[in-house]
């Protein structure tokens, strides 16, 4: 859904053709979100059908016409209204790890604990990579979008931190559950 608004937002600055659009998108958020040309052109077609952007074809010598897109006034209103609305649906809990845990549940706890530990190290590595990026960013000259990039990195950091904390919590619960299973009699006394 927000590919649509990201493209609208970039086009609201000035008109662009598809290649320029992708370059602008990659420069702003490419680190977190990759789009291919197919997605860009499909989305542009839809925006055009909805009357949110309009296209003009610029002839080029010995090459197909260049398609240049600009936002319509309807498109601007739509973008403004979207920018002002909070995001209704929080991040989906659809991690591959949950599926792995699901099929491991009930069996021997040790391989699960190993997996949880390995996964925690992966997230720590991710946190560290993001932090080094943040540290490098702070050394660059101040630009308008530096703060936004910094905040995007922060968001990724908070999410990864939540994952690390959840894994530590899961580890404790798994250990406790396996202790209970190993000593059912003591438990019932």
């Amino acid at each position: 859904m927000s590919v649509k608004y990201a493209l609208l937002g970039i086009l609201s600055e000035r008109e662009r053709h598809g290649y320029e659009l992708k370059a602008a998108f990659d420069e702003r958020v490419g680190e977190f979100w990759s789009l291919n040309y197919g997605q860009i052109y499909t989305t542009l077609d839809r925006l055009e059908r909805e009357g949110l952007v309009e296209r003009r074809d610029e002839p080029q010598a010995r090459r197909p016409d260049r398609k240049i897109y600009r936002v319509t006034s309807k498109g601007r209103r739509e973008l403004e209204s979207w920018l002002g609305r909070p995001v209704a649906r929080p991040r989906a809990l659809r991690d591959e790890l949950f599926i792995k845990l699901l099929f491991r549940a009930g069996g021997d706890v040790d391989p699960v604990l190993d997996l949880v530990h390995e996964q925690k190290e992966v997230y720590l590595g991710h946190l560290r990579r993001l932090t080094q990026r943040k540290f490098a960013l702070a050394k660059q000259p101040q630009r308008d979008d530096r703060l936004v990039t910094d905040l995007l990195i922060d968001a990724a950091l908070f999410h990864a931190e939540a994952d690390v904390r959840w894994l530590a919590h899961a580890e404790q619960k798994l250990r406790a559950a396996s202790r209970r299973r190993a000593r059912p009699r003591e438990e019932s006394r």
Partner: protein
Amino acid sequence: MIRLRNVVKTYRQGRAAVPALQGVSLDVAEGAFVSVMGASGSGKSTMLHLIGGLDVPDSGSISVGGQQLGRLSDDELTLFRRRKIGFVFQFFNLLPTLTAEENVALPLLLDGKSLHEARPRVESLLERVGLGARRCHKPDELSGGEMQRVAIARALVVDPLLVLADEPTGNLDSKTGEEILHLMKETAEQARQTVVMVTHDARAAAYGERIVTLKDGRVVGDLCGEEGERP
């Protein structure tokens, strides 16, 4: 720079023996920024205290900057701590009756220098941590972040080989904590100092280029190298 071999430390609590470190071996390269993570009771603070010569192991050996700590007398250890190591603590540990400037100068004063001699170094460090205008303030006139900046300047005043930090952001809000970690990393890079920082906070730990995880007194994770790859 730091070399731990089979370090064991057990504390006594009444009659019970509480194992804090159960055979830890670790090498830290010069100039590295290493985070040590672990839950409370994992042995991470004990490890920091042993590296800093604030406590001695039951067995095993520790060397810092080529110096075997076990071979030093108490007096030598005190001098070693004062001249070679900078400490940064969770609760800042500043002296409440002294100004920021006097707190920063303290390690030099203890080493026999006068405040007059210490002043140029102290002033430049207070400037460096962004507190040039606060040098005559006492700790209770400073915010938490400012107190930690004073503590960092105090840790750096002797130009230590090694900076040891125990939960340096544990008492700060997340934005201030970020600024403090940034400052620590930046000053360490500039002075090519080695840093060992203990924390239970994954986001703080991520400032280290290496993240060692302790659990029940043992090293269970050691993340170093690029992009989170295993050594």
